[in-house]
């Protein structure tokens, strides 16, 4: 059993991941990432109340990627075009690490107080305002501009709702998996995944699997002869009571 490091404070999923890797003094490689996958998930699980709702989905995305990477170690034939695309997590994390090192220096400079000042322009305030109407402004324009300002606020105002929607989708998916497990004692993970309609669902499936494995409700095994991972609910009673609250 590897030593489990407790990370007290983290900002964002990459920050948590980086801290876990660094606390184990590992280089950023695919292998080391899969090595801290479980710790990552339990940290997210334990801190779900402290993570701002609008960021939680991003934490879950990284969890999904980690689980995917780990599944691939067990099951190389398991491929997911969408999860494979874009920069891989190791590359992304190495780049993030370089910026965090730069940020430390930048913070030092910021706090040093070596400020360059512009000329004070307050004296201009003492000038008596001269009415200088702008040539390009009329009443209909004001209306257009105000509508634009209001429209621009929409994403900010709706941010919590959008975040909640993403979270609810994941909760629903986990609940669905529990239901299916209750009715099916055994089915293959790959067949489950293949039924997922889109990337979103596949990610959620991975997460759900991981969560259930963690809670020892199911076991994940790879049989020698089959390419798929068998999933068995080994405690259906417990599963029935399982309070699914990953998020």
């Amino acid at each position, binding site marked *: 059993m590897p030593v489990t490091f407790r990370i007290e404070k983290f900002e964002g999923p990459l920050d948590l991941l980086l801290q876990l890797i660094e606390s184990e003094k590992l280089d950023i490689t695919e292998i080391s990432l899969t090595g801290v996958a479980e710790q990552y998930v339990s940290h997210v699980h334990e801190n779900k109340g402290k993570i701002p709702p609008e960021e939680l989905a991003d934490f879950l995305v990284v969890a999904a990627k980690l689980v995917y990477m780990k599944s691939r170690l067990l099951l190389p034939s398991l491929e997911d075009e969408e999860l494979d695309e874009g920069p891989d997590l190791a590359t992304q994390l190495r780049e993030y690490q370089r910026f965090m090192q730069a940020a430390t220096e930048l913070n030092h400079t910021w706090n040093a107080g070596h400020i360059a000042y512009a000329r004070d322009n307050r004296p201009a305030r003492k000038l008596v*305002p001269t009415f200088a109407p702008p040539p390009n402004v009329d009443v209909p324009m004001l209306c257009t501009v105000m509508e634009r300002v209001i429209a621009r606020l929409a994403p900010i105002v709706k941010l919590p709702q959008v975040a909640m929607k993403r979270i609810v989708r994941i909760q629903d998916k986990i609940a669905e998996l529990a239901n299916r497990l209750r009715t099916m004692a055994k089915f293959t993970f790959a067949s489950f995944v293949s039924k997922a309609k889109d990337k979103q669902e596949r990610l959620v499936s991975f997460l759900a699997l991981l969560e259930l494995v963690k809670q020892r409700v199911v076991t994940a095994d790879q049989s020698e002869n089959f390419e798929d991972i068998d999933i068995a609910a080994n405690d259906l009673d417990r599963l029935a009571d399982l309070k699914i609250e990953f998020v």
Partner: protein
Amino acid sequence: MSIPQQIEAILFAAARPLSIKRLAELSAVYVDDAEKALVELEARLVDSGIMLQRAGNEVQLVTRPEHAEAVKQVLKDEIHGELSRPSLEALTILAYRGPLTRPELEQIRGVQSSMILRNLMLRGLIEEKEDVRLGQPLYNVSFDFLRHLGLSSVEELPKFEELRGHQNVTDVLKDLEQDSQDDRDSQDSNVSDQITV
């Protein structure tokens, strides 16, 4: 550190006349040394577009008279001609939703707006009101500006009620209230790292 340079920096930033005594204090040198530094600075500035101006015991940095035309033009830029998009936005928000404090206006615009408010004041398009809200001055569009638009009051603006009372605006302003409440709360409980943005 070079005293002439330091004095130059102080005079540059202050943008107003300062006494030689005050300059000496700020640079932590004797008045005689400040005086010497000023002579040195004066000599160096011969090659520059600015110069040292003396009046009695006070000195300040000003532009050389030969650049007066260009300088006048850049100062006029600020108060004449078309409004920039950010200025127009601020003016519009004040027209529909005024009076507002600077933090309220910024909350709606989502952008720091001190320079813009200053500029709109200089152009006489907005006014600082007599009263304050939460210790902050309130701004409104000026009567001159309304008259220029041919309006007798802001209520004549198109869709005035609808846009003034729009939920998005009300919601972000509520966030601001909440934030300042949170600030007060966290200051009480001393959770300072929670509030640094």
